[in-house]
């Protein structure tokens, strides 16, 4: 295990009464990954103790509900606390995602870890700092504003002694409410926040010392593998256990309804047994014909309409005189495709359940496991251990459910490692999106009406049923939780009449969940392409057209667009480019969004090359201008932007779940290819740092623009519009040929 310091367990001492200024009860210092239940600790979001502890050696523990998914959040939170408390980063340790120790700051999604989670922790640290200064002033007999802090040691600037946080707090509770008015450090005084501090976890990842969930071991654990049905909805008719009799070390075959798993002493035996065990399943065909997916989506029953914007009177405006444009866009079903398939370990001890996994929302998982096994919430502890990138709700939680079911059956800790086919086949999917858009454009080239309809499943971000609960018919919430997919259906451009409607469908082919920029990606793809169609129809330069229709009071928006033009050396002219000749044609396209209309501003330009004979698209260059307000760590933000672009180019050009009438058929990388080194573009990123503004998220916004920038660039190069993600070569060729 890779702990930078391993605190030992101490008994909880409860004092009586609490002096307002003195720190009171001694906080337990607990080994976060230990196999039991620590004494209860504060998890209320309005308490400093929920977020921070200082021990007798002056080590600061940060309790974060938000977890580092490989995003650098652990480092950024450390920077924030180091800045507010004036403690060296080396003296800060972050415990994350442990339902027994860390608060529920909400799931780690939506690019909110810093924006919400970091801001909460910052305020707690600021509150603690103010209280520590009051205490220190009393101790040193100095005035609070005469005091300075250097690495947790407080001294009067006018001289006369030093007192450390360790001496002041010595492992006690702060017993303070977080003060929203406690002053935070001024950005001008920042020494750590905003600086390109190296990530704390990276060295261990390069030496092999870092512990991923897949590396985590619990004494006495056994190895489990799941055997999934060959089709969704298939029932398990027969299991022939004698088929694995020659495999050594098999502990148990666990069958519960349609859930089947094998538990063995060693991992390879579990792998072989899961592969070889003879089973019979019923036939089941519950999926639509993939070739008719969009007809299926359009025909799905609509439960309700969410009108996400309604400005002016679109009904009248769209019918009035003018040039009418309309288009339909679609975006395929995608899988998260985590490089390291999901892994979890569970253990039942005295009827209580501990589950270690890489869930981005351990507090939610805890509720689901408690329900599944009919346990009181307090008897379930979910602990986060870093996994491979999940980009949303992948199989992490499901692996936890599987391992818990197996652990219960064998009475020992069980580690479940999903196979590649388990991950590609059974993790929840980004649902298919179908979008109709219409616009009316007047003689001067201005949009008088913009109307759009989105065909998307019902539900929001919530709980996603665990596969084990479904297969074993154990209690579950039975929600459909595709994520906040209505976001960015509304547009930020200033048109006089706008109506955007989301038709919430009763069903969608696979268990849906959120994948990076859920809904925002699909909706922005359609919006930013359709806007580009309008610009082309009126012969306007697309970047200038966007500037023209952005709120002139939004200076930050215009700044992004301005800088984008400079960075990309934007050639101001309408699309498409004039010389569409030869086999290889080149073009450029732009897009812009203010994410969710209320936060991070991004503008992007893609340069593309299309081989008109083969339909292959290359993206040699991609430009990004990014304003997320106050930047905590520019390296982290850049890494997220690069990840957004490269991952989403992969999704845009190549990715599409394939399925037959029963089941997913793209069960490995050969059948679900992703971008390789040969296809990665050169990236140019301009970060705008606004330290006096709120820090906004960076993990997703850029991803929302990639597909439209590429489609707009393809149009610029060829005069042909790609409206269906992925832009695979045969689709591109068909579009080129029908033009």
């Amino acid at each position, binding site marked *: 295990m890779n702990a930078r310091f391993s605190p030992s367990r101490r008994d909880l001492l409860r004092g009586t009464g609490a002096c307002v200024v003195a720190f009171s009860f001694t906080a337990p210092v607990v080994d976060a990954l230990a196999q039991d239940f620590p004494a209860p600790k504060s998890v209320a979001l309005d308490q400093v103790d929920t977020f921070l502890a200082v021990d007798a050696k002056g080590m600061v523990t940060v309790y974060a509900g938000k977890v580092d998914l490989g995003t650098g959040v652990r480092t950024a939170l450390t920077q924030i606390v180091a800045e507010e408390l004036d403690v060296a980063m080396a003296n800060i340790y972050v415990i994350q995602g442990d339902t027994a120790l860390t608060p529920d700051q909400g799931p780690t999604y939506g690019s909110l870890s810093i924006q919400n989670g970091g801001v909460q922790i910052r305020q707690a640290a600021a509150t603690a700092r103010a209280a520590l200064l009051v205490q220190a002033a009393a101790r040193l007999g100095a005035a609070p504003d005469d005091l300075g802090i250097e690495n947790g040691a407080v001294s009067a600037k006018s001289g006369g002694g030093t007192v450390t946080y360790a001496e002041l707090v010595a492992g006690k509770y702060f017993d303070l409410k977080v003060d929203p008015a406690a002053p935070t450090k001024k950005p001008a005084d920042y020494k750590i926040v905003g600086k390109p501090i190296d990530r704390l976890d990276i060295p261990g990842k390069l030496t092999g010392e870092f512990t991923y969930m897949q590396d985590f071991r619990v004494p006495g654990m056994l190895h489990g593998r799941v055997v999934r049905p060959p089709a969704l909805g298939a029932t398990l008719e027969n299991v022939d256990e004698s088929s694995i009799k020659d495999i050594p070390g098999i502990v148990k075959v666990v069958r519960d309804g349609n859930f089947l798993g094998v538990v063995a002493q060693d991992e390879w035996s579990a792998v072989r047994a899961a*592969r*070889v065990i003879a089973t019979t399943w019923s036939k089941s065909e519950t999926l639509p014909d993939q070739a008719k997916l969009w007809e299926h989506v359009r025909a799905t029953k609509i439960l309700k309409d969410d009108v996400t914007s309604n400005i002016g009177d679109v009904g009248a405006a769209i019918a009035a005189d003018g040039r009418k444009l309309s288009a339909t866009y679609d975006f395929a079903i995608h899988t998260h495709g985590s490089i390291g398939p999901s892994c979890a370990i569970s253990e039942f001890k005295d009827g209580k359940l501990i589950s270690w996994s890489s869930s981005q929302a351990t507090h939610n998982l805890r509720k689901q496991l408690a329900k599944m096994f009919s346990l009181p919430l307090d008897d379930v502890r979910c602990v986060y251990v870093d996994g491979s990138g999940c980009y949303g709700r992948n199989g992490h939680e499901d692996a936890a459910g599987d391992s818990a079911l197996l652990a219960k059956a064998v009475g020992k800790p069980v580690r479940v490692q999903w196979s590649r086919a388990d991950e590609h086949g059974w993790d929840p999917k980004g649902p298919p999106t179908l979008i109709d858009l219409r616009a009316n454009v007047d003689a001067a080239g201005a949009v008088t009406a913009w109307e759009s309809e989105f065909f998307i499943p019902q539900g929001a971000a919530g709980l996603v049923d665990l596969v084990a609960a479904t297969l074993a018919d154990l209690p579950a919430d039975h929600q459909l939780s595709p994520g906040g997919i209505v976001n960015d259906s509304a547009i930020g451009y200033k048109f006089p009449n706008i109506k955007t409607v989301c038709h919430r469908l009763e069903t969608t082919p696979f268990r849906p969940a959120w994948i990076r920029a859920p809904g925002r990606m699909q909706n922005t793809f359609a919006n930013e392409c359709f806007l580009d169609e309008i610009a082309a129809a009126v012969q306007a330069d697309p970047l200038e057209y966007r500037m023209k229709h952005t709120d002139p009071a939004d200076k930050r928006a215009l700044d992004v667009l301005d800088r984008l033009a400079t960075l990309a050396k934007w050639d101001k002219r309408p699309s498409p480019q004039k010389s569409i000749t*030869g*086999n*290889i044609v080149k073009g450029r396209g732009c897009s812009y969004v203010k994410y969710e209309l209320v936060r991070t501003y991004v503008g992007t330009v893609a340069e593309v090359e299309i081989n008109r004979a083969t339909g292959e698209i290359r993206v040699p260059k991609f430009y990004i201008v990014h304003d997320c307000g106050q930047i905590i760590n520019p390296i982290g933000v850049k890494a997220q932007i690069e990840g957004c672009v490269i991952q989403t180019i992969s999704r845009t050009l190549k990715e599409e779940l394939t399925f037959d009438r029963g089941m997913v058929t793209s069960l*490995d*990388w*050969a*059948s679900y*290819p992703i971008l390789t080194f040969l296809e990665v573009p050169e990236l140019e990123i301009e970060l705008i740092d606004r330290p006096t503004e709120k820090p906004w998220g960076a993990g997703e916004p850029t991803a929302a623009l990639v597909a439209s920038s590429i489609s707009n660039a393809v149009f610029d190069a060829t005069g042909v519009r790609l409206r269906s993600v992925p832009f695979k070569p045969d689709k591109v060729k068909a579009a080129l040929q029908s033009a």
Partner: protein
Amino acid sequence: MHEGVDRAGRQLYPAFPYDHFTKATDDDIHALYVFLMGQPPVPNAIPANKLEFPLNFRPLVAGWKILFLREDPLPRDASKSPEWNRGRYLVEGLGHCGGCHTPRNILGAEEKGSAYSGGAAEGWQAPPLNSKSLAVHEWTADQLAEYLSTGWSRWHGAAAGPMAGVVNDLAQAQSKDVRAMATYIASLSPQSGSNVAAPAPNKQVPGTSADVIAIFGGACANCHDDRNDVGPSKTVSLALSSAVRQPGSANAVRAILAGIQPPPGAPGAYMPAFADMLTDHQIASLAEYVRARYTNEPQWTDVSQQISNARQ
């Protein structure tokens, strides 16, 4: 294209298969010309010929042509469908499938009377497409159409070696043309509907060393698992694999060494390359094990030689 001479009228060696291209129509050749001339030019110094005397004496090719070049176009066969005729035109002409799938005589020409009885290309064996086919299931037109457009058939396995390149290029062709070719090629073998009996799954091979069983179990069985109809990465049973059923081991050995790639940028079948993972001796033992377990054919005798050829 028709006569096998260059711009200056010099003889071209039939490595450039004008014995097939001669069947192409003038219109098609003209279209090819327009396409090629539309490509961006690249500088390229043509390497000098390395043939030994007397082969490097080009005028000798004239003699070869007298013996083997038939420039007359293919007459339509009115008793067959337009699709079949189109298929024959493509297969015999520009497709030049016989160039690999027909054995050659000592003068390097395709053996008359043995059309599509099997040949070789770049170290691989091109299996027979006629009545000499060794496939367990007869190739039907549907199976061939799927195989030629995707590089994979549920009943035969994945295209590998030079055939993978052919299939990748055919992905660019119109599907009706690929269908036509499939129709023609299917007609080369008797479509009797009967299949060869394959060995039982899990057939034991007495005398196999424990090492080979262990290596197959750890390196191969994850995909080549007889349980599944279609295994991971689109594996089909080795009992159906034409590579395993060929009289020589070249294809099996090369597949093990170099693996099989999906079409570039598209989903497809995959096999990893074992060249760096396993030694020559291990690959030879595995190849012989697979031959014995998945066929009732005589054991290969050329395995070590084929491995050493492929490694070069």
